[in-house]
């Protein structure tokens, strides 16, 4: 079991991006192309195992050691604040975590004067920490999706959410007020795995650093 290197990857786009990046350094998994219902894929020859999980669960699998390595957005890491190593910025999946509000509210709103605001978000921890540092009290409304709806129906005046192009926000009449963090996908590593499998993991990090540096830089 434990001579395998196990990856936890979020299902979907990030998984594809991750596998194409890993492919550049010779880490592949032919089994993945065959079946799409499976949750665990193995490359027995090279001793790699890949698990397809929900993005929010990636840090959990890695923190507890069910996976040695994971790929996850910085937004999830900031929100969950886990005990993990985060050695590499993979520089894909670029987006931003922002504070936004309706355009008409923005016209005569002064964020410097905020003292008590209500915010709808998928990221209550990040939001609370961000505003606590500014001395602003927030009333948080945790939602699981379609955050842009909240200001339209009066659930909250403002939101904290991820944007990539900003199109969804614009279509819903929202404008950005402030960026909380730039977000990209990160490679995360379990603490014990980094020590007990240091040879394979060091090699992986060095190889990845090489191909990431060679490739085009998306974020600055």
């Amino acid at each position, binding site marked *: 079991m434990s001579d395998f290197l196990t990856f936890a990857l979020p299902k979907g786009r990030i998984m594809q991006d991750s596998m194409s990046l890993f492919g550049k350094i010779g880490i592949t998994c032919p089994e993945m192309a065959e079946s799409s219902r499976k949750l665990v894929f193995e490359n027995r020859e090279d001793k790699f195992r890949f698990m397809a999980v929900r993005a929010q669960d990636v840090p959990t699998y890695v923190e507890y050691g069910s996976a040695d390595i994971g790929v996850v957005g910085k937004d999830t890491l900031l929100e969950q604040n886990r005990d993990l190593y985060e050695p590499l910025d993979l520089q894909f999946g670029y987006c931003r975590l922002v504070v936004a509000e309706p355009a008409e509210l923005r016209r005569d709103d002064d964020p410097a004067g905020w003292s008590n605001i209500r915010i709808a978000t998928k990221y209550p921890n990040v939001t609370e920490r961000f505003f606590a540092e500014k001395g602003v009290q927030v009333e948080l409304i945790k939602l699981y999706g379609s955050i842009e709806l909240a200001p339209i129906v009066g659930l909250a005046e403002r939101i904290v959410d991820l944007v990539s192009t900003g199109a969804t926000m614009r279509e819903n009449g929202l404008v950005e007020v402030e960026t909380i963090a730039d977000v990209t996908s990160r490679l995360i590593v379990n603490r*014990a795995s980094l020590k007990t499998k240091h040879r394979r993991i060091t090699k992986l990090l060095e190889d990845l650093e090489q191909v990431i540096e060679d490739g085009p830089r998306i974020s600055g």
Partner: protein
Amino acid sequence: MVNSIETRLPTGVKDFLPIKANKLEYLQTRLKDVFYRWGFRLVAPAPLEDLAVLELGLGEDLREKTFRFDDRQSGRLVAFPPDITPQVARIAATRMQELPLPFRLCYNGSVLRHAEQRLGKDRGIHQAGVELIGLDNPEADAEMIAMAIEGLQAVGANDFTIDIGQVEFLRGILDGLELPGPQAQAVRTAIAGKDLSSLQRMLETLPVTDRQKEELLALPRLFGGTETLERAAAAVSNDNSRRALDNLNQVLATLESYGVAEHITIDLGELRGFDYHTGIIFQGFLSGFGQAVCAGGRYDGLTARYGFPAPATGLTFSLLNLLFALDKALDERVAFGSDILLFSEATDMTPAHRLATALRTQGYTVARDINTKDRQESLAYARRMHFRNLLIIHQDATCLTLVNTADEGETSLDMSATLAGDLRL
């Protein structure tokens, strides 16, 4: 049947039932044997402390995790210790100061800590460990690490690593930086997470010299086998870090003469315990288990907080992590259950009592089946409750039948021979 009385436990604390409790006790016993073999003597610190006294020996992190409350007798705040090391430091500093150093002390106990309300985050923590007080040389640090290795081997771990760091190496690099609080904190967070990408980005704008930058950027990758020390020597130029590397090399040399260097890995970017430790630090990891199972290191400043400055180093095993990680392996190592359930078909109970007493004297674990009516019922009970054998006394009280509960294999025995010590299980 569902019991309608609410009996839930607070989260983060556990009851250990038979088998699990046997395994826990096995870990405690084997580790204590190792501590004794190295000449350590047991202390049993008090279960409750005066908060102000306890806090002298606690870092910020543990202070926040301490269970504290009002003492009705004195009106003062008292606390359950979140860690045993400060208690041993207090004992050494105040109760033993007339004795010659060094002190080799060991303990085995449980402490309470506030923890995040998350699965697998315990608040009741079982610790077994040692403190070596009064020695500042590398050989003392090596003793802790060699004992960590021997302890892990003693409880049946075979695939593990002891990961060593040196906080003075880090201080040599970090102390020279003149960064405002939040930026210094951000740099430390990036180093702790081995987040080279963020560290690079941060250092582009921070006021640090090229030399400092080079040293800082090396930290997230200074982990691996013992060859890491060579990379580290090439990466740093400040005196403190160089001295720390010399110290590490001396510790490694001692571990080589103990013949245990194969279990060692190095991590010079490890910030854990940075505020508390003063030299060599280490953590033990089992292959395939995500959390450290033991940890330790040098803490030269601790006993001074109790008025008795002395160099010191220590080692603690996290018994619950070991229990979880080694659960399967312990099935084979830990004998649980009892040898014999004694069932009598005779109406006079005297022979049963005499036989039970004789067998216990011979060293067997024996319980009397006092309440079941027939042999089948008794056998079912014996099997369910982990008795390895059912011993039946027949009507005449001279013939016995021994039934192995696993395979129901039967052996006929004679009462007087068994009383005399003929039984072999």
